[in-house]
């Protein structure tokens, strides 16, 4: 019987193409946009994730995410170090400045300054060199994609000289730092040097990176820091969550992506629903004939759902394949879309969505199959 269902289905190639297109379209759009959205949200917290040894972030009370910095007085660092439960605390600088090569090429850069002595907060992913290379005079580490944007076509190498706000900087290491939200060039330097690249007032301390003592809960220690210093303090996990919440509430990103995703589902459902309805209408005499031959309504429901699921599986496979191809070819480690991936759980969630879409789209058609009188076969 399943063979009969398949032959009935593929006997109408135009409808099958329409159905597969509808499902593939919805799958591609929802998967691609869903994964891009997740990628953007991940990017917004990459700075937090890259500071691997840190489990508490301390900041000015008005700061809500890593891209919005209100500098604190350097003295706040000592207050934090004095809070019970804090194992250590180091300064962290974050700012933005134009960077210019000797050839005259200019790009915007995110400058991250880490503690001169301990280098806490620097990324651990180095392509050339190591964190200790930041200890050299005028040393900076630049991310691989930034290097390729500033010196296109040249092989990765150290020793290049840059100008940062008219101050000299020498590339001593190349990193594979996780891309920032704005996808600019990412530069790591010592705190003292990074802060010297940018005109700041008395206050230059962007964040304080801290670690709770062994056995102490970071979120509890963060609460103690807030109580004792009046500064905002979060565990790394909570700061990541708050950053995502900020972008969800205060930007058009969720609405923009959400609209596209909903449109993908609605348009896909419309195409699939209408095409499947046409398919069933045009073949209603065949379903009635099956009733005459002795097929019960329950078996007919199974047959119709099987047909719907077959086009669903084919369309989903094509749509997911296209989405995967997009991420494989467009989001290479050296492209502006680096770091964007297709998470397995997005693909799984989309599969569930498509299954619901298929079932809902089949409902109207199913009703028609169930109520058709087998006697209609006499009238053709």
């Amino acid at each position, binding site marked *: 019987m399943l*063979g*009969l269902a398949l032959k009935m289905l593929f006997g109408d190639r135009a409808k099958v193409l329409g159905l597969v297109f509808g499902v593939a379209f919805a799958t591609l759009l929802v998967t691609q946009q869903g994964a891009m959205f997740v990628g953007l949200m991940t990017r917004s917290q990459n700075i937090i994730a890259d500071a691997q040894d840190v489990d508490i972030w301390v900041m000015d009370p008005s700061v809500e995410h890593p891209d919005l910095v209100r500098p604190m007085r350097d003295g706040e660092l000592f207050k934090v170090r004095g809070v019970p439960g804090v194992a250590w605390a180091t300064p962290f600088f974050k700012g933005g400045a134009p960077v210019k090569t000797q050839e005259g090429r200019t790009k915007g850069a995110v400058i991250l300054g880490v503690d001169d002595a301990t280098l806490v907060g620097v990324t651990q992913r180095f392509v050339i060199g190591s964190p200790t290379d930041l200890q050299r005079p005028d040393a900076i580490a630049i991310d691989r994609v930034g290097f390729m944007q500033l010196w296109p076509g040249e092989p990765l190498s150290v020793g290049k000289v840059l100008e940062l706000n008219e101050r000299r900087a020498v590339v001593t290491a190349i990193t594979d730092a996780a891309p920032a939200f704005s996808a600019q060039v990412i530069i790591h330097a010592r705190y003292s040097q990074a802060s010297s690249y940018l005109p700041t007032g008395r206050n230059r301390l962007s964040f304080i990176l801290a670690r709770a003592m062994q056995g102490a809960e970071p979120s509890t220690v963060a609460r103690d820091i807030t109580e004792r210093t009046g500064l905002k303090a979060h565990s790394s996990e909570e700061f990541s969550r708050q950053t995502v919440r900020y972008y969800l509430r205060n930007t058009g990103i969720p609405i923009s992506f959400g609209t596209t995703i909903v449109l993908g589902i609605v348009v896909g459902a419309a195409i699939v629903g209408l095409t499947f309805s046409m398919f069933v209408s045009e073949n209603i005499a065949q379903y009635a*004939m099956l009733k005459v031959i*002795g*097929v019960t309504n329950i078996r007919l429901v199974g047959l119709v759902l099987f047909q719907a699921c077959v086009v669903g599986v084919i369309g989903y496979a094509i749509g997911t394949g296209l989405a995967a191809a997009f991420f494989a070819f467009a989001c290479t480690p050296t492209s502006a879309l680096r770091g964007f991936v297709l998470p397995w759980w997005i693909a799984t969630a989309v599969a569930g969505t498509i299954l619901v879409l298929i079932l809902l789209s089949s409902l109207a058609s199913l009703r028609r199959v169930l109520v058709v*009188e087998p006697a209609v076969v*006499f009238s*053709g």
Partner: protein
Amino acid sequence: MTAPDRNPIAVSCRGLVKQLGSGSIRTRVLHGIDLDVFPGEMTFLLGPSGCGKTTLISTIAGLLVADEGKVELFGTNLAELGRRSLVHFRGAGVGVVFQQLNLFPALTATENVAVPLLVQGRAGASAKALAQAMLREVGLETHLTKYPSQLSIGERQRVAIARALIHEPRLIICDEPTSALDGASGQRVMELLRKVARDPGRAVLVVTHDARIVPFADRIAHMSDGRITRIDVRTEREAA
């Protein structure tokens, strides 16, 4: 062929009433039909268009439910069967040849004929083998893998008959089986049906307007305005 049945009546309709439509356009189509169809015979149902022939055979086949009266097939009262049982009973016991044929266009002749066996749960290979044997029996041995669109109307008609016979139903109902056929093809089809009807365990009920095939009838029920007006029983010699 099936073994001879001890039941003397294949189809028994008593006081059959059927209305179609709904609300103000609900119309009584059958007005208390009494009709018997006997095994081993070919019974013809004759009458003008709109007299209720199709409604009557739909009700006999269990495709429509009678509003009043009783239909018994080989002693089984259709009204006493549940919906699901009726579907199974119809699938196993009744074969129908439609005027429009209603072949599955995406299936080959063999696959079309095998469908009733597959519905009854027979394995694919066995169903296919039986379907091919049945197609050979109706003279289509060279068309086993052809699709309906590749067959002439007469060949399609024979595929439809093979499909109606493949599961050895005890009642075969044919709606205008020769309407689209030329004289010679119509004769071949009727000879095939008469051969089936000669089985004492089976009955054939034919609805037709085609005067050319009337000589094949053993019994002729004349219908008019939803009523059986006359039944002619033909002698064996007349029906030969």
